[in-house]
């Protein structure tokens, strides 16, 4: 079986083959691992990879798999329709600003029609006692402002659109 996971914007291909009591794994068509002693419980996967034992806590949340290996956490995203996603991502990046997390819209220091430069702060969003300034991705003119100062905004909600 083949799986594709996205981790930190890179795609990783995993080929998993079951053979009797073990699994043969090939990652990105290069690295090979022999996996034995696989145990899967509700939130724990344990196995031996090349004779080292791992106890890995995990939780599957839709297409995301959250994993904890010792003190390090990994969130892998199962790739399905990666092409569509990448496109939308780019489009948003070029023409608008949006907060990376839900928060309070503290300030929109620009108005519709303003000429702005790349890097100009278009909005300030506060979350968990931290203010995040959202800089303009490019030179342009403010086309539309969604949301008022003092309002709650959602993650990825477009606040300022450029022409």
């Amino acid at each position, binding site marked *: 079986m083949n799986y594709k996971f996205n*981790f930190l914007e890179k795609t990783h291909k995993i080929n998993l083959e079951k053979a009797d009591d073990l699994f043969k794994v090939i990652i990105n068509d290069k690295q090979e691992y022999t996996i034995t002693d696989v145990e899967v419980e509700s939130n724990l*996967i344990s196995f031996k990879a090349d004779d080292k034992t791992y106890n890995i*806590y*995990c939780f599957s949340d839709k297409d995301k798999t959250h994993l904890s290996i010792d*003190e390090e956490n990994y969130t892998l995203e199962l790739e399905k329709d990666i092409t569509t996603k990448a496109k939308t991502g780019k489009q948003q990046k070029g023409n608008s600003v949006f907060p990376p997390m839900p928060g309070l819209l503290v300030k929109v220091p620009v108005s519709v029609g303003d000429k702005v430069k790349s890097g100009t702060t278009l909005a300030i969003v506060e979350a968990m006692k931290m203010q995040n300034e959202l800089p303009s991705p490019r030179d342009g003119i403010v086309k539309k402002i969604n949301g008022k100062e003092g309002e709650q905004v959602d993650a990825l909600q477009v606040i300022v659109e450029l022409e």
Partner: protein
Amino acid sequence: MFKKILIANRGEIAIRVAKACKELGISTVGVYSTIDKKSLHLRFMDETVWIGDSPAISSYLNIEAILEAAKKTKAEAIHPGYGFLAENEKFAKACEDAGISFIGPSSKALSLVGDKVASRNTVKKVGVPIIPGMHMTSTDISLFKKTAEETGYPVMIKASMGGGGKGMRVVDNEKDLEKSIAISQREALSSFGDDSIYLEKYIEEPRHIEFQVLRDNYGNCVHLFERECSIQRRHQKIIEETPSPALNDELRIEMGEAAKKVIEASDYTTAGTVEFLLDKNKKFYFLEVNARIQVEHPITEMVTGIDLVRQQILIASGKKLQLSQDQIKQNGHAIETRIYAEDPDNNFIPSPGKILFLSEPNGPGIRVDSGIYQGCDIPPHYDPILSKLIVWSENRNMSIVRISENLKMYIILGIKTNIGYLKRIIDSKNFASGDYDTHFIDEHKESLLPKQEKLNIALIAGALNKSLGINKRAKEYGSQYSQMTTPWQEIGKWEICSLS
């Protein structure tokens, strides 16, 4: 003694305070904002009252609503925890006026220690060293210039009402001074509504060391030794330890006595912390008084065996301090790491969301003060602190090993946390040496980056989980979800769609 206390806070500190109340036989009133309806702290309260909408300004900072809740439930006292209204003079005054005990210093003492310039003057009078510089705010640029020349560059401009690094600026030479003054004034105005600023000598390689003090209404005063708090990100402490590797017994006694003088001079009661900077030549300077129970109070509790929140409540209720200075000893070593919902690999950006899986460490020498449970939502409205992992052991080396091992056993899935980052600091040679200052995190940025050595293992686990995990899980949860078994099987293996 109080019969009922309202706890005007949320999260781990509200639970910490509720436990102290329970142990003194005091009933508790918890408060919550709309989004906190299911927060863990409410499970520890005898009564709960809704105090407003989710934004803090409408709820946990809403003086009127909190006093209203106290009156309605007939609470005799309010414990403010830390943050929110803990050091708010107006709130303390409003409690006093309403005949409700504010568990903290009087509004007068709060006002005195809250003003950086006023407290600086108080402290100077009793002979405790302060950082050389201006002793009052000013708008006269020539005064800034003159003082800077006297103390020598680099100098630091600070806002009188400042905190969290806002309005603070280091100036290396006279050329940059005027411009920096203007920027600081602007920042101070927009952050605190007050553009008063002043100038001090900039302390190089400073360590942030604070002393815990208790003082009752009858003038009895003791200190409970120091906390070393130099590991900070964005001017906020993330790892604290006691004893400090920087102090010897002589300096420890000297600073402890200085801390008591500061508290006495301010006529400050209950629990307070006196913060000092220690420079590379082991000279110390008064910084400020933290007029509240602090996030890092557990490490003091673990080495002295004294329950600080209990003492706070006893003192506020009018009891005499039952401790004398010579009874208080430092025993062993304690370290605290603050567990935050944030992404240390992305400028510590907060990471609210749902905790999907949780497993907290326990065992010998382990204390977890936690505000979370599996399934809880971390709202974006408040401070991102989730919990604190505190360890005690016989000595510093064993404490380091203990906290390192137990960070590994602290599993939080669903949101980003700083657990891995904390472990990288704890495991670093520079931390182990004990020779570090407040610039630690900036200076070691590179070596604290995540290694992602185990990415391949994560990918293998992810693939095994997709391949084997889901059906398995349906079986295991079968009891609670038994009625799901049939439809599940009818749908077949949904993983098929995830194959490429």
